[in-house]
């Protein structure tokens, strides 16, 4: 047979060009660019509650700074669309994140007349939308790099440290959110602590109660449907309603038992919030414990018993270690869910960062809402990264 002498025709230039375009990068660039062009970079308000006047990037910053910022954004757009190397994408996206953050802080300083403590300069949608696009670009690049779990945790810590140092430097102090912080600094620390305490405390209690309950469900299949069904029903009750339901019995308990009252148990406040969060946390933990134990190789359990392990030894040495990644996945769900849900606890006097959110809503002071909301998002994100890394480390060698 004759060998085909004709080489394969080269793909046409336009196809090669199109295939080199990064679709996610192109989409993010389009959205980000539209936001920079048509949405206000900052809002200048005469005081903290009136609607602001929009200012675009080049109106808010001196020419050179605006030009530099635009150049970095253009560079990141080019890299996002055309460059496939994940390291370069991450580096440029991070550079752009830093640049827009510095730009918004510089704009706030530039637009605030010296000594004026009433005027507020808030970041606008023309800042937030590109920031989110750049953030997505960063996480996409990190996903492509597949960093080891330890490295991911290190990156998270570096990010948190950089954020804290930047905010502590005073460079961002003219931004309206930071003005709200300056007014509420002491309360902020207390509410942050309260927020973490409520989220972690209810999680801890749910683990202590949920693990044995899950083991029981696994060992006694007859109980499984009843227990999981009950927890499922609890899960369907809206948070605010559950907080309300908790008020009556805890209020009655406090009225009947002076000791309970002295321990801080009342119809409103942290106690009903903690109890409600605990109840919400139970289902994911119990269900994942049951699921994790069910997935443990029956041959391994049979071999363990056949070699003379006691029931307790089988549970602690074989079943729980092998179920741990699945159980931790449940804990991750609960922790992230709790960090968000504690916000609502503020409505019944439970405290936490939700206090700022609801106060801000009440005063139509959006900056106060952000003062509560941004740390909640960062906390939830950090918890997810930490526990994902832990699950991955523990899941190794267990296939």
């Amino acid at each position, binding site marked *: 047979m004759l060998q085909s002498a004709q080489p394969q025709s080269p793909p046409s230039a336009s196809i090669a060009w199109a295939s080199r375009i990064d679709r996610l990068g192109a989409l993010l660039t389009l959205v980000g660019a539209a936001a920079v062009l048509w949405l206000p970079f900052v809002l200048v308000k005469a005081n903290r509650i009136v609607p602001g006047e929009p200012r675009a990037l080049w109106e808010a910053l001196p020419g050179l700074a605006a030009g530099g910022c635009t150049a970095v954004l253009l560079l990141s757009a080019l890299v996002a669309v055309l460059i496939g190397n994940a390291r370069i994408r991450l580096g440029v996206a991070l550079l752009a994140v830093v640049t827009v953050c510095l730009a918004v802080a510089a704009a706030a300083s530039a637009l605030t007349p010296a000594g004026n403590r009433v005027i507020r300069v808030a970041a606008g949608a023309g800042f937030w939308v590109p920031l989110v696009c750049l953030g997505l670009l960063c996480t996409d690049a990190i996903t492509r790099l597949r960093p080891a779990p330890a490295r991911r945790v290190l990156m998270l810590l570096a990010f948190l440290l950089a954020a804290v140092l930047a905010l502590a430097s005073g460079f961002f102090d003219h931004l309206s959110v930071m003005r709200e912080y300056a007014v509420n600094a002491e309360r902020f620390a207390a509410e942050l602590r309260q927020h973490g305490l409520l989220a972690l405390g209810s999680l801890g209690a749910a683990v202590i109660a949920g693990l044995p309950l899950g083991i029981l469900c696994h060992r006694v299949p007859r109980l499984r449907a009843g227990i999981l069904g009950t927890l499922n029903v609890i899960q369907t009750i809206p948070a605010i309603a559950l907080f309300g339901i908790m008020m009556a019995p805890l209020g009655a308990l406090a009225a009947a038992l002076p000791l309970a009252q002295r321990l801080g148990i009342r119809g409103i406040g942290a106690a009903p919030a903690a109890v409600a969060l605990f109840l919400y946390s139970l289902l994911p933990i119990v269900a994942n414990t049951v699921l994790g134990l069910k997935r443990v*190789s029956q*041959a*391994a359990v*049979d*071999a*363990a*018993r*056949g*070699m*003379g*392990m*006691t029931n307790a*030894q089988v549970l602690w040495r*074989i079943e729980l*270690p*092998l179920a741990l990644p699945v159980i931790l996945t449940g804990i991750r769900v609960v922790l992230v869910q709790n960090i968000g849900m504690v916000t609502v606890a503020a409505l019944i006097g439970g405290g936490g960062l939700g206090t700022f959110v609801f106060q801000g809503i009440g005063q139509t002071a959006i900056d106060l809402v952000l003062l509560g909301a941004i740390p909640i998002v960062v906390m939830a994100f950090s918890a997810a990264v930490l526990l994902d890394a832990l699950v991955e480390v523990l899941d190794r*060698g*267990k*296939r």
Partner: protein
Amino acid sequence: MITVENLTKQYGATRAVDDVSMQIPGNSITVIVGTSGSGKSTLLRMINRLIEPSAGRVLIEGKDTRSEPAHLLRRRIGYAIQGHGLFPHRTVEENIATVPRLLRWSAPRVRARVEELLRVFQLDPAQYARAFPHELSGGQQQRVGVARALAAEPAVLLMDEPFGALDPIIRAKAQEDLLNIQRRFGTTVVLVTHDMDEAFHLGDRVAVMSQGRLLQYDRPAVLLTRPADPFVSRMTGLADRAMRLLSLTTAGEVASPGEGGGPRVAASASLREVLSELLWSGAHAALVVEADGTVRGQLSLETILAHGRPR
């Protein structure tokens, strides 16, 4: 020696094991064979009390197995199962060390025993001791499973379809390994299988079970020549029972003195293999030689044919 006395396991109205009695001699391989649902695994698991009998009892070296807590009994009995049941989160070394550690052996003694077993099973300790089960091939996993079962030097080893998940070539290797190990350690092996060839190849004695009852328990040749029950002859196979019978005897056992011509066959070869060789080469007799090359004797076609008939 293991004595099984009137052992019965009742689940509701059905008897998984129905009044089984048998004497399992020490330092030998006993194979329990039967179709699925015959009660063979239940019988095996009652020996180490993974299943508690409804009636009857088991004696090991004359001692009732119920005279001590079940988990202590099981630490003295090796246990290997189909699909090996290795602990996926523990290294090969830790898996093998399971029972010695339960028995609180000293660390150096555990380490020495693990190394010895890895070598016996042709696994280089330097390469495999710290490997995880998922890093091994199926055959290696199975060998580690048996090594783990033998770790605390048990006098009795129970095996529940240990080679069921292996492909034919690796299975044949695993069976040879088991025969060597049994000879080396003098273990009393009780093995459950549904594979009649495996039963005949490995078993010094074979027990045939059906619907919870022990139909026949004897040497393999007796099962072939004097089946106690139509089910036993169906299990052993009517069509090739003569060939099966030949496969139970080795050339070395029946060679007669003399040095005739013919093809050379190993003394360890079965009569079945020698017959095949004679048919192939068209010869009437074979020369039986030892592994070291010395001549053991000769083996005629007539002698072989005589061994293929029930006597």
